[in-house]
Each structure stands twice: as structure tokens, then as C-alpha cells.
């Protein structure tokens, strides 16, 4: 199988690296002297790439002009490599863009047009402009990308033949030299005998043109996903409410989902960091009911807890980290199942995020002979084996109500009993009680007990 590469170019990479909200900002990036990229709002003001810096500032005094930041561009490309990794197992950061090996991806995604559609639609969904071209070598893909065309393998040769020498990334002196020799297009060049071509150009330029023709390929350094997830998004204008933050958070959780899926891992613990304009950081840790992979499972509880993070200062950057991961447990796929476990876990996560950890409990039976200790409501269900017991009420009264020295005087008629519980000598809460089932004047069945030390009666619960 012959290699196939896709070269991805992001025309607004320098802008996006500075802040993800560049599309709604009048901003341009310069290299010290000239404008290299301008946002749509800046373009509407007549700013265009190639314009001098002074001219741009004169033309649009309110223009936000920033120098390009190669380090931030590199970080963004690294984030984009994560995204591209779902389409190919071999992704490289090269030539201010990404290079993907797609020959093997055809088995998973279908023919090249389908891979093209998958990549472009995914980029479009993320609101990120992207250009793409295929080639047998990354250099061949570069040439097509430069011309703004995206041929398929059966037309690679034809398109190459029509490519002018000027389109190649070789120095102007060598272009001139080849032109003087009568080579106007790559077809002219490749028709010349191999030894003649080698003689007329230095080794590097010769090898580059051989790579363009698909005859030689330079080695690539493939991207390796890091062992932990740590990505962030920055903004030009500070975000002042939860609604504005929702979109970047969704983008980060989607990337976290892709990262987890690739590893067949899940996490129950994610950590957000919100960087404020005043320099403070606000961390927000989300603990889920069970390890999850889906972005939705992360975003729902995060959004509910987010209100606490907005203080006096707007948020200028959001960072998402995943430091604990566990192996994904395959889901039960039962045809007759009315719901999935994930439905319940996601519901519990949402409720916990809004109501607090303590708000959701389950009635549990603990192995203890004292009824008030045996029946507790706990956050994590547990159940001890139940011995044969006398009837127990449906409801327990958390703090028993005093009935005085005689239940009859309080209107409680004794019916069944006594159930003597004398225990708890091993801790500081020894119990010595006689429990009775009794009937109130209004025919309500109550569970009462007599404290045998103090000879007082107490209401402990109600039978429904």
C-alpha cells in the first residue's frame, strides 16, 4: 500500500493562538513589520495580510495589534494534534500545520472524500477555518495546498505536471536557474533524465523536488499523546457569565472525551482552573458518581457548579486537567433494558452538583443491633445481611420524641412487645430498651420504646 498523507493548514492559527474569541474582536497579528493575519472584523476595516504595521494602525486606530507568539501557536497545534489523532494513528506537527498519514484511515473512515468530509466538518463544527490537501508525500500535499486544490490520487500526477516551478518551496535563485534552463512546470523538470536533474540543483533542493514528485519522503516526527490530559483556552475579552463560558468548556470536554476514548479509559475526577483578569486562579474539582467517558457527563455538573466561580473579575482563560484515569468497563447492551446505568449516574452527578454531596442518600442496613445505628441513610449504598427481626416501622424519627413515664397517658396503647434490646456495651452508647408496637387514638401504628435505665418512654418511628 502506497503512503498517503493529508496536510492540514489553519489560516487563522496565529489569531486563535492568542485567544479563542478572536472572531468577535478587531485584531491583527504582525511579525514585527507586516500584518500576517487579521480577524474578520479587522478585514472589514480594510486591514489585510501583507499591509505594513503603521498603515494598519493609521487605517484603523481601534485595531488591536499583537505580535505573533510562536510558543502559543505550538501549544495550539499540539491541541489540534489531539483532535486530529482521532482520524489517524500517525499525526505530525510540521510546516505550521498538521500532517496525517491517512492510507490506513481509509479502512475505518472509507475512501479519501469521506475522510476529507469528516475532517472539514469537524473543523467547521469547532468554528475553525481549515484547508486540506492529500499527497503521496507531505511535500506533494504542501504543493497542492499552496495552489488551493485537493486532488485525489488518480489525478495527483496530472496536477503535478501543471504545477509551475514558482509554486515550489525553493529559493528564488534556484527557481530562476531552472527557468533559465527552460523548465517552466514540474512536468518539464521531471521529463529531464534523473542524472541531469541531480547535476543542476544542490542536494537539498533536488531531494525536495523528488519528494514533491512522490519519489522520496523525508522522515516525520510523529506526535505522541501525553499520559495526562491538560489543555486550556484563552480569551481576549474576559468572560463575565456562565453562558459565555459554556462553549469553550464544551470544546475542552469534547477534546477530553476524544482523549479518553483513544485510550479506552474513563475518569471520575476532573479539575477546572479558571484564570481571572485580576491574576487569581479559581480551581473547580468535579467528582462523578462513576468513571465516565462522555463529554456530556463532565459538562452538566461543571455548569451547575460554575456559578460559584464567577467573582468580581472576568475569566480570561480556562484549563481542564484529567489526572486520574481508569479502564473503561464495557456497558451492558441488553435489548430489554429500559434505561442505562449511565442515565442514573449522570442524574446523580447533576443533582449532587446543584444540591451538594450530602443531599442524595440511600437507606442502608448496617450490621448493628441498635435500630438507630442499623438503619442509616448513606451516600454509598451498603447492605448487611438482615437477621429475622420483629416488625420494623417504615419511618424512623431521627430524634425520638419523649412520651413521659406512661405511654397510655400520652395516648399510645401497647399492642405487641416487648422486644428487649440491651446492647452497645462496646462503645460509649450502650442501649437498654424495650420496644413496643402501639396504637394511637387516631389508629396510627407507632413504634415506641422504654428506656430501662431512666424508665422513660420515647416515640421511635411510624408504621405506614
Amino acid at each position: 500500500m502506497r503512503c498517503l498523507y493529508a496536510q492540514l493548514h489553519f489560516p487563522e492559527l496565529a489569531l486563535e493562538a492568542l485567544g479563542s474569541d478572536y472572531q468577535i474582536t478587531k485584531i491583527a497579528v504582525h511579525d514585527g513589520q507586516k500584518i500576517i493575519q487579521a480577524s474578520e472584523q479587522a478585514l472589514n476595516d480594510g486591514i489585510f495580510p501583507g499591509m505594513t504595521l503603521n498603515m494598519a494602525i493609521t487605517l484603523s486606530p481601534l485595531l488591536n495589534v499583537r505580535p505573533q507568539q510562536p510558543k502559543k501557536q505550538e501549544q495550539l497545534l499540539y491541541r489540534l494534534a489531539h483532535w486530529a489523532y482521532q482520524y489517524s494513528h500517525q499525526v505530525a506537527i510540521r510546516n505550521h500545520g498538521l500532517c496525517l498519514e491517512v492510507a490506513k484511515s481509509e479502512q475505518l473512515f472509507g475512501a479519501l472524500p469521506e475522510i476529507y468530509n469528516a475532517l472539514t466538518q469537524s473543523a467547521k463544527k469547532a468554528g475553525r477555518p481549515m484547508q486540506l490537501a492529500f499527497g503521496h508525500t507531505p511535500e506533494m500535499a504542501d504543493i497542492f495546498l499552496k495552489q488551493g486544490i485537493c486532488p485525489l490520487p488518480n489525478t495527483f500526477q496530472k496536477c503535478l505536471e501543471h504545477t509551475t516551478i514558482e509554486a515550489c518551496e525553493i529559493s528564488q535563485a534556484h527557481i530562476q536557474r531552472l527557468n533559465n534552463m527552460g523548465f517552466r512546470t514540474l512536468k518539464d523538470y521531471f521529463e529531464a533524465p534523473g542524472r541531469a536533474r541531480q547535476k543542476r540543483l544542490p542536494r537539498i533542493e533536488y531531494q525536495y523536488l523528488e519528494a514533491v514528485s512522490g519519489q522520496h519522503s523525508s522522515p516525520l516526527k510523529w506526535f505522541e499523546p501525553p499520559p495526562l490530559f491538560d489543555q486550556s483556552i484563552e480569551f481576549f475579552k474576559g468572560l463575565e457569565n456562565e453562558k459565555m463560558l459554556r462553549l469553550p468548556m464544551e470544546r475542552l470536554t469534547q477534546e477530553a472525551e476524544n482523549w479518553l476514548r483513544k485510550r479506552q479509559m474513563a475518569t471520575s475526577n476532573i479539575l477546572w482552573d479558571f484564570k481571572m483578569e485580576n491574576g487569581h486562579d479559581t480551581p473547580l474539582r468535579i467528582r462523578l458518581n462513576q468513571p465516565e467517558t462522555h463529554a456530556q457527563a463532565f459538562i452538566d455538573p461543571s455548569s451547575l457548579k460554575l456559578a460559584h466561580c464567577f467573582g468580581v473579575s472576568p475569566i480570561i482563560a480556562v484549563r481542564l486537567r484529567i489526572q486520574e484515569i481508569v479502564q473503561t468497563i464495557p456497558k451492558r447492551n441488553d435489548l430489554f433494558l429500559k434505561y442505562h446505568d449511565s442515565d442514573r449516574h449522570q442524574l446523580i452527578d447533576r443533582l449532587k452538583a446543584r444540591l451538594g454531596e450530602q443531599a442524595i442518600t440511600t437507606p442502608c442496613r448496617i450490621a448493628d443491633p441498635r435500630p438507630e445505628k442499623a438503619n442509616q441513610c448513606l451516600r454509598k449504598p451498603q447492605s448487611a445481611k438482615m437477621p429475622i427481626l420483629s416488625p420494623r416501622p417504615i419511618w424512623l424519627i431521627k430524634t425520638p420524641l419523649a412520651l413521659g413515664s406512661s405511654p397510655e397517658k400520652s395516648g399510645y396503647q401497647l399492642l405487641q412487645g416487648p422486644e428487649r434490646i440491651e446492647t452497645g456495651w462496646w462503645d460509649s452508647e450502650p442501649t437498654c430498651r424495650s420496644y413496643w408496637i402501639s396504637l394511637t387514638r387516631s389508629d396510627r401504628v407507632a413504634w415506641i420504646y422504654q428506656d430501662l435505665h431512666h424508665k422513660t418512654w420515647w416515640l421511635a418511628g411510624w408504621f405506614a
Partner: protein
Amino acid sequence: MKAISLQSLIDDGRLWKGGSSPEIAIKSSGFQALDQSLAGGGWPAHMLIEILTSSPEELPMQCILKTWQLQQDERWYVLVNPPYQPCAEGLIQANLKPEQIDLIRANPKDTSWCLEQMAGSPAIASILAWGIEKIRTPQLRRLQLACQQARTQLFLIRPLNARANASPAPLRAQLHKIDSGFTIEIFKQPAANAHPIIEIKNDLEWLLKPAPAMRKIVTQSIHKRLQ
């Protein structure tokens, strides 16, 4: 005068013809007399049911416990803001699975949101909710829609004065305490007319058969009351 067709409302399930048999999923209430009065023969399985009572800490659980005992649903059951703490041993003896029951304590501000989340979750079978003093009609409508979409049953316990206000809940009933048990009046239900008030007696016969280790103290007068 322009004639307006009601067919679209009937098709949407927002309007019922009185006396027709509705095609709704039901779950038996566990009381024969009550089942006969309920359209379809039981509590609607996927609807908002309003229970109005002046004894919220006593009657709703007496009324609902049997329907929960009869349901063989693998989904979860929820108690929202119950008046007391549920007793796991008592629930096991009543043939319920405590590990399948969630207990939720929500403050009044969050209760409506919390109910909507649960009513809209396919993982929940039935909810019994206290602590709703004031709720607006659009919120009730949202709860009803959530119940229909996720096939959830929601019993909402409300005070008696709520009866004076219209409600989008398809089924509304009033519970009243009497000496021998309670009465239930179903004053609104889908596809059925009003029924007379039903009297449900407390099942106290089990008290006459004490557990092996227990002594029975039942006087003649009590015996009469229990029977």
C-alpha cells in the same frame, strides 16, 4: 362565529373525552376500590399525580406504599423531602429494596428543578415528593411533560388549599384522615368523570398475629378496633 376544532388537542393528549377508556399505562394502586375508581384501573404510570392532604406526614405513604410494593420495576424509586427518615429494615420487611430507593433532601428553591431532573430521567420509576408549598403552573406543566417523555410517575404532595387553583396535573386526588383509615377523592383524572369519595380502611390485622418472640396485649376494645 368561527368554529375551532378540538381534534388537535385530543390528538396531542391535552384534552380527553369524558367516559372514554384512555389508552394509558397504569400501575395498580393495591386497593381494589381505588383501582375501580381510577381510569384504566390504576395510578397512571407516566404522569404527574397531585395528592392534596392536610396530613402529609401520614397519609401519602399509606396510600402509595402498596403500589410501590406491587411494581416490579428495575428502575429507581425516590423519596424527596420525606417527613421522616426511611427505615431500611422496615422497607425490606415491606418487600421493597432499600438499595433501589434514593432519598433526596432539597431546599425549597431547588426542589422544583430537582423534580424536573428526576422526572425527566429514564432511570427513575416513581417519585414521591413532599415539601412543595408553592409551585407555579408552568413548572407543573414542565413536570408533567418530563414524566411523559421519560415514562416516570411523580406523586406530588401539596397542601389542601392548592385545590382551589387549576393545575396541569392530569390526576388530582385529595386524602382525608378518618378514624378507621383515610378517604380518597379523585376530583380530576383523564377520560373519566368524578367518582364518589372512597374509604380505605387501615390494614391492622397483622397486629393480631404477633411475631414469635412478641407478646400480644390486646384488650376487647382494641380487638374490635383492629378488626
